[in-house]
């Protein structure tokens, strides 16, 4: 028994120092104002000042749009990938871009979306004329969805691969057409994958701040941007922590709503 305790010390220390203490500190810090006095003012300000509530609402809205558009693109992709020969190899090719540094992928879009960039060249070529693409809401959503797509395809693909072909055959035998089979059999049975993907994308989308700065041009403010701003720019840690606590609460709500399966592979940068 004594021996067991010794080798566990580093791990338990880690739990104490890097899991419990920081989380406790962020809650503690949220009760202090910028001059270091104990106060409930941050929460009061958050709840009564329209700016914060509007920002939270916008952030949730953006995260929803990003997650749903990712889902819309990923589900058919996963479905089609699953029918291919060598599907594991194709899946590997879907996952490969996630190994490229996130910052570099975002940086690429600064070039692609610029005034004289390739996307505008293409638009001019097809006669649509050039547009301001960078620093718009649409470009922010596009880049965020681009980065998250593999994390949605993967869980859906896995739950499709687990689906027994006999289920589909049975459905066909019982006279269901392809749409009915999809709607009544395939979709319900792959819901765990969809939920896992939703969880893996929605929460990081709430907290993105790098893409909002580089691509959104500070027009889009998410909960993550607000936290970064309060911590590293205005140095109002109390308010930043308060928004952090809100983000943690939002995370629990999302996890509760999409419970029944843990996210495999977990966190996205």
């Amino acid at each position, binding site marked *: 028994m004594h021996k067991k305790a010794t*080798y*566990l010390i580093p791990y338990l220390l880690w739990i104490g120092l*890097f899991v419990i203490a920081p989380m406790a500190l962020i809650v503690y810090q949220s009760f202090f104002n910028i001059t270091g006095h104990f106060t409930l003012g941050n929460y009061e300000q958050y709840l009564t000042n329209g700016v914060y509530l509007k920002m939270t609402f916008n952030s949730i809205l953006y995260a929803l749009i990003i997650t749903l558009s990712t889902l819309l693109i990923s589900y058919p992709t996963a479905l*089609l990938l699953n029918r291919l020969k060598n599907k594991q190899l194709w899946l590997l090719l879907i996952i490969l871009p996630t190994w*490229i*540094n996130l910052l*570099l992928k975002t940086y690429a879009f600064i070039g*692609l979306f610029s005034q004289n960039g390739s996307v505008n060249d293409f638009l001019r070529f097809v006669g649509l004329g050039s547009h301001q693409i960078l620093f718009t809401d649409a470009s922010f959503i596009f880049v965020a969805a681009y980065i998250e797509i593999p994390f949605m395809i993967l869980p859906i693909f896995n739950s499709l691969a687990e689906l027994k072909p006999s289920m589909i055959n049975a459905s066909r035998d019982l006279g269901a057409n392809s749409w009915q089979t999809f709607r009544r059999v395939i979709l319900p049975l792959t819901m765990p994958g969809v939920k896992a993907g939703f969880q893996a994308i929605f929460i990081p989308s709430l907290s993105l701040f790098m893409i909002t700065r580089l691509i959104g041009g500070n027009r889009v403010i998410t909960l993550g941007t607000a936290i970064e701003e309060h*911590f590293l720019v205005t140095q109002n*840690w109390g308010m930043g922590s308060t928004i952090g606590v809100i983000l943690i609460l939002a995370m629990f709500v999302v996890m509760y709503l999409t419970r029944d399966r843990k996210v495999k592979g977990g966190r996205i940068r």
Partner: protein
Amino acid sequence: MKKWRISNLYLALVFIVLYLPIFYLIFYSFNVGDTMDHFSGFSWRHYATLLSDSRMISIVLNTLIIALLSSLIATIVGTMGALGIYSAKKATVKNGLLSLNNVLMVSPDVIIGASFLIFFTFLGFSLGFGSVLLSHIAFSIPIVVLMVLPKINELPKTMVDAAYDLGASSWQTLTKVILPAITPGIFAGYFMAFTYSLDDFAVTFFVTGNGFSTLSVEIYSRARQGVDLEVNALSTLMFIVSLLLVVGYYLLGRYNQNRRLQRVKAAEAKINQ
């Protein structure tokens, strides 16, 4: 036949969109000009700039040192943690430890970064190499635990009992029976921790302070100032490294599988004797 075409077209489009930005970056790294929108000729110029940029090279080295060290320490602590979770007798203790383990897996990066920043400031720990290293170790430990734990759970309990019955001490059982069996999980954990560390931006950004920088943070600050083709040259090199890592991971996976298959076969052969 027509349906087949449409579906393949759709998949092709998805793949093009996924890879276009990456190849776009690589393509312009060979541009003789300075912009990412007009290709004026081929040159290695930006690679030369990159290789003579001593600041960038020291940042690359910093990033690698942080990644290698943090994943090594995280692997050791995480493996001990996984063994501890496995040997917990009470279900409540086991589940409690697992939930605490997963807190950092599900928390958004911004929360991890901000809370670590408060933590380090609270302790009076100065920001720099040390704080970045500790943060990377901290967020890598749960990944290692999640990679190692399934391997320990796969290990038949009878094996451990047999070792004890044959008179092995608990140290001998650990080093001769348990550790060899979970080595694939430990390697996978190390590998994942390494890539997480290389890739991390948000947490590092919060705890890095002034003076110390990693690649992600450096790319961010350069990208904020606009296009710099030296970054493109860097991205080509990093793409090649990522590719090698993926191939390595894939081979490691196959190696593990093969070893596992072999072990199963060996066990079957012994049982059938």
